[in-house]
């Protein structure tokens, strides 16, 4: 494997992640797989890339007081539980020889759906701006079931007084995803925090990054401990480029409008989802493949 290419790849993905305020895992894992790195190793090793870029993100958001640590910890609690489940599930799927299918299917479903929604919403916003229309009145009411559940907690920074169960469940779901897809899960967390939990928009990205650090750190340790699929050399090469790229990406992000960035991101997400899902429908070049589970 040639290392300058990996550092460069880390830098490019880091730039994208800084630009859009995401972890970038959904982009990194497919590229690594495309480069011929076994999916299990790619997914597990790039999680630490997500840890690094999210850490530098959280540090800068903390200085802007844009992280709600309380709700972040509740979500991270669910996330750690989800990661435990996800790593065990991944291990079981690997033994069945079905890990590739699970990875491809999750990418197709989640990235496809989220990408389509983002693209639709942001293109609509851009069109309205071009035509000079007013934004339609937004339904700001939170779904009622958020209030019907027990274990209510106050989250002053997010402006919430809701049950702890929805953020915990959301964290858990993203934890499972994080283990299977090797992503931080920001692309699921951010919309869910905005549109389902209705958190204050200002704290959403910082809080999601905080939750992502804890969950991906947990995933990395579990993947290393249970599946031995973490390659520290690979992940160091990626994150060396990644942290530098992320800083430059963050500087560039101020030059674009938010909805334009979301439209481009939605397009990238959708394309990655389709690309990963395509593998399910295209005849593979070799019908046979080694399955992990024994020393190769």
């Amino acid at each position, binding site marked *: *494997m040639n290392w300058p290419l990996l550092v460069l790849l880390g830098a490019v993905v880091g730039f994208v992640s800084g630009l859009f305020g995401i972890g970038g895992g959904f982009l990194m894992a497919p590229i690594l797989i495309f480069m011929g790195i076994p999916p299990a190793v790619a997914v597990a090793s790039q999680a*630490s*890339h997500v*840890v*690094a*870029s*999210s*850490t*530098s*993100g959280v*540090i*800068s958001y903390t200085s802007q007081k844009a992280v709600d640590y309380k709700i972040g910890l509740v979500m991270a609690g669910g996330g750690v539980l989800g990661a435990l489940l996800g790593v065990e599930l991944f291990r079981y799927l690997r*033994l*069945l*020889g*079905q890990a*590739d*299918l699970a990875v491809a299917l999750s990418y197709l479903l989640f990235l496809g759906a989220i990408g389509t929604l983002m693209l639709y919403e942001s293109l609509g916003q851009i069109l309205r701006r071009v035509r000079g229309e007013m934004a339609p009145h937004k339904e700001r009411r939170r779904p009622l079931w958020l209030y019907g559940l027990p274990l209510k907690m106050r989250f002053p920074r997010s402006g919430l007084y809701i049950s702890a169960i929805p953020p915990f469940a959301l964290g858990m779901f993203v934890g499972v995803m994080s283990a299977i897809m090797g992503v931080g899960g920001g692309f699921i967390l951010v919309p869910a925090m905005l549109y389902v939990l209705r958190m204050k928009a200002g704290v959403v990205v910082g809080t999601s990054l905080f939750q992502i*650090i804890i969950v991906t*750190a947990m995933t*990395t*340790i*579990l*993947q*290393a*401990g*249970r599946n*031995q699929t*973490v390659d*520290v*050399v690979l*992940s*160091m090469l990626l*994150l*060396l480029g990644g*942290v*530098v790229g*992320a*800083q430059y990406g963050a500087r560039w992000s101020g030059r674009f409008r938010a909805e334009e960035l979301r439209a481009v991101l939605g397009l990238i997400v959708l394309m990655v989802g389709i690309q990963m899902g395509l*593998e*399910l*429908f*295209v*005849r*593979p070049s*070799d*019908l*046979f*493949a*080694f*399955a*992990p*589970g*024994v*020393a*190769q």
Partner: protein
Amino acid sequence: MIAALPPPPPAVPAPAPERSVGTTDQVRIAAALTDARVRVDSSFQGASIVLYGAVFNPNDTPADVVVVVRGPDGPVRLVKKTRSNGVWLNSRPVLFEGAPGFYMTASTRPLSDIADFGQLRRLGVGVDHLRINAPEESRTVTRYGVRDVVVSRLGEDYLDFRRAVIRLREAAALYDTDPAGVQFVDRGLFRAEVELPAVAPTGRYFAEAWLFQNGEPVSVSNLTLTVEKVGIERDIFEFAHRRPWSYGLLCVLLAAFTGWAASRVFRRN
């Protein structure tokens, strides 16, 4: 003082061993490795095994040399993608009990020119004649006059699976056939070089040098060698497998530290 003295000469000098006894009338092959311990370097580059040897061929019948190097056997799990409802899915993995982790033949001519199919199959020489133990629930029968045909629950698929193991290993440069890999550097003196990729398994390897005349094996020399990995990557690999939890924790701490360091460096600028 006494220890410093040289040992006394033997009373009767022993006769030099006549290692080349019989070489005047017997066809024989002798081979050796330049290094019986091969260290695969950490720099992703692999290593090479150099085998040289001599052919004692008193008559003028042309002789062919075939060098076979095989690595330690290990189980292999294989899946086959099948199409169902328009979607390509993996089959249940099939376990092959033992396939060599490395297998390479080098010869003076293509193997099929040196000996016939039956002979090579009997000796297990050549990638096509590798003994890859069949999956469980298998038995061997004689079919179409060929002995040891493996029948398993895979049925006819077995051959496809077997070919796939070989094809995938060939793609990883773990199995190879080099029909010009043995070169005579001088009359009766040959040399073969076998490339070992960085992914080659570690452990005990067996090397055989066969001498063929008229399609018959006339002599063989057996050697063993040890392949081990050295360098920092080996240390990391060992660490990752011996203490996986601390390894994982270390990876995370490294990552978090790098992220923190980057944000410090860039804030100052």
